[in-house]
């Protein structure tokens, strides 16, 4: 398989106006990915599937990732002229990353037996601009997985043939895989001897995700 940079260059050459960005991955797995802009995503996907040297005909895995708005405080050492003397000052810089939802596609090639190529699509925000284009017309295998992402994350796939909830029931309103999801009242609740344990767990903060 070609390197990711080469693929990126070829996409940009083949699909006019496509914005493709490399997303590095620092872990030992070294699986870097490509972020594609929403308006050209289908064309890029089409190209990836049809190109005789890439032939990514097998969309193995589709999943969502929720990135809520985060405020990162970091201490940055800067040099500044204080009273004419250059001194290094520690400065607390707050960076605010707006929240968004991400859809990750893992592509493989059955014909040429290579992969994975990881595509990422991102929504504008987490509340009202949650559309990304559906890649189901390109890879049929995305159908149920995109439905699942819609169900659990609330990403709306434009162009999906049958966008309904798949794992939760139709009347359900929230999206449980989001990081800020709050469990509704459990109407089927009944007391068990296990309750004390759960209360304790919740007190120690273990019940919440990511703590």
């Amino acid at each position, binding site marked *: 398989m070609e390197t990711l940079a080469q693929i990126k260059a070829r996409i940009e050459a083949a699909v006019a106006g496509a914005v493709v960005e490399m997303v590095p991955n620092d872990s030992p797995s070294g699986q870097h990915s490509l972020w594609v802009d929403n308006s050209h995503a289908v064309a890029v996907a089409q190209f990836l599937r049809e190109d005789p040297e890439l032939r990514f005909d097998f969309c193995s895995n589709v999943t969502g990732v929720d990135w809520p708005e985060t405020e990162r405080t970091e201490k940055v050492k800067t040099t500044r002229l204080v009273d004419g003397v250059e001194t290094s000052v520690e400065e607390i810089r707050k960076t605010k990353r707006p929240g968004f939802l991400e859809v990750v596609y893992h592509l493989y090639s059955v014909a040429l037996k290579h992969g994975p190529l990881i595509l990422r699509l991102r929504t504008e925000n987490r509340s009202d601009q949650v559309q990304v284009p559906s890649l189901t017309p390109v890879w049929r295998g995305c159908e149920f997985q995109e439905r699942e992402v819609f169900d659990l994350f609330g990403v709306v796939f434009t162009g999906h043939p049958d966008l309904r909830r798949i794992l939760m029931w139709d009347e359900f309103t929230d999206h449980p895989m989001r990081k800020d999801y709050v469990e509704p009242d459990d109407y089927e609740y009944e*007391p*068990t*001897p*296990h309750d*004390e*344990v*759960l209360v*304790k*767990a919740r007190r120690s903060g*273990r019940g919440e995700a990511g703590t």
Partner: protein
Amino acid sequence: MLGKGIIKGLAETARNFFGSFVSERRLTTVPYPDARQPLAENTRQFPFLVYDGDDWEQGLRCVACQICEKECPPQCIYIVKSKDKKPDYKGQMQFYPAVFDIDLAVCMSCQICVEVCPFESIKMDTEFELSTADRFGGLLFHKKQLAKPNAHYHRIHPTDAAASDAVLAAEKAKQEAKARAAAEAKAKAAAPAPVAPPPSAS
């Protein structure tokens, strides 16, 4: 010809029909409460607490470090640490669990508590006939029900129990050597040396 495969299949079932009367290999099931299949040595069902000696309360190896409670994936363990301390098998003063409950209705027999326990105190039992009519309390096992002697552990998992005893013996020997060294140092220095801190949770 039509029917050849069907006749082959019929011959196969007939062979099994008669075979099941004569061949042990074919008839693998046993009439359960009357006959039982032997359990493998590694078999695990639900956790129990090991105690040394005869008194289950004194000999309990658990020091209420609560690691298993933290690591338990379905959170079925509930421990309350004691206020006071009692000597453990090494003679060191340790906390002990004032309450140690395991909700076996929630436990999924994953053995992670056993793996993370640094004191060789929680092990997996092979008892599985635990059905009860009491939905709310029947499977909530308390410290007394959970405590079982080391001899029981030796009976159900002899290899593991021997290894576990060896680990404890080595630690005890280390501790004694350390105490001896400390005592010698103390004698030499003739000054009060600090007591070795008890191994605490993580």
